[in-house]
């Protein structure tokens, strides 16, 4: 079955440092979504990547989809305290299950020290 690994599980950075989280799948994906969950909040959609090698940017956030569509990364440049939260990847592929059923990674919990 589908295996999704997200690393690291935790990341502590000093404000202003960069941060990257990686999402790796054992199978080729049709697309991947990224979500952010603030402490005490619920996951909020950030972006979706569909094409092989795709790169998308949202201000200080850069999202990449691997050429083989098996991995993805989220990079934050010059972190701020507002970036604190857990970042989840949600790959979607043909798992033999229901279309639309995203499999969420375990998430990377980011803490930022001011």
């Amino acid at each position, binding site marked *: 079955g589908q295996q999704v690994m997200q690393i690291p599980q935790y990341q502590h950075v000093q404000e202003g440092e960069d941060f990257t989280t990686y999402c790796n799948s054992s199978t080729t994906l049709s697309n991947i979504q990224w979500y952010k969950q603030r402490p005490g909040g*619920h996951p909020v959609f950030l972006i*979706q990547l569909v094409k092989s090698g795709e790169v998308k940017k949202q201000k200080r956030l850069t999202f990449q989809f691997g050429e083989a569509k098996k991995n993805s990364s989220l990079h934050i440049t010059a972190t701020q305290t507002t970036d604190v939260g857990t970042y989840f990847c949600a790959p979607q592929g043909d798992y033999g299950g229901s279309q639309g059923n995203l*499999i969420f990674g375990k*998430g990377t919990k980011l803490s930022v020290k001011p």
Partner: protein
Amino acid sequence: GAGVSQSPSNKVTEKGKDVELRCDPISGHTALYWYRQSLGQGLEFLIYFQGNSAPDKSGLPSDRFSAERTGGSVSTLTIQRTQQEDSAVYLCASSLVTSGGGETQYFGPGTRLLVL
């Protein structure tokens, strides 16, 4: 417009009691999902409804868990004979399914369940 709403926001119950959690999806969204999130953990998929299709129940952890979606809108997640390990935040999400797939999921605020 209104987002996904869930009720109650918090629920404290005694071990062995049944609980019902409610989810009101975004109007017009055909897909509805239930997840469970234990403290500090990731999202555990429970069940998925899509239109009139049979629900995907593959994530339900035991037969004490069941869910219904009436009229293609409101959904209720029922946990019978609750156990302490059922304590978690139960999140509902909805999405508008299109032929292209990869639909964004919009999450509700969750119901925090504590089983004593």
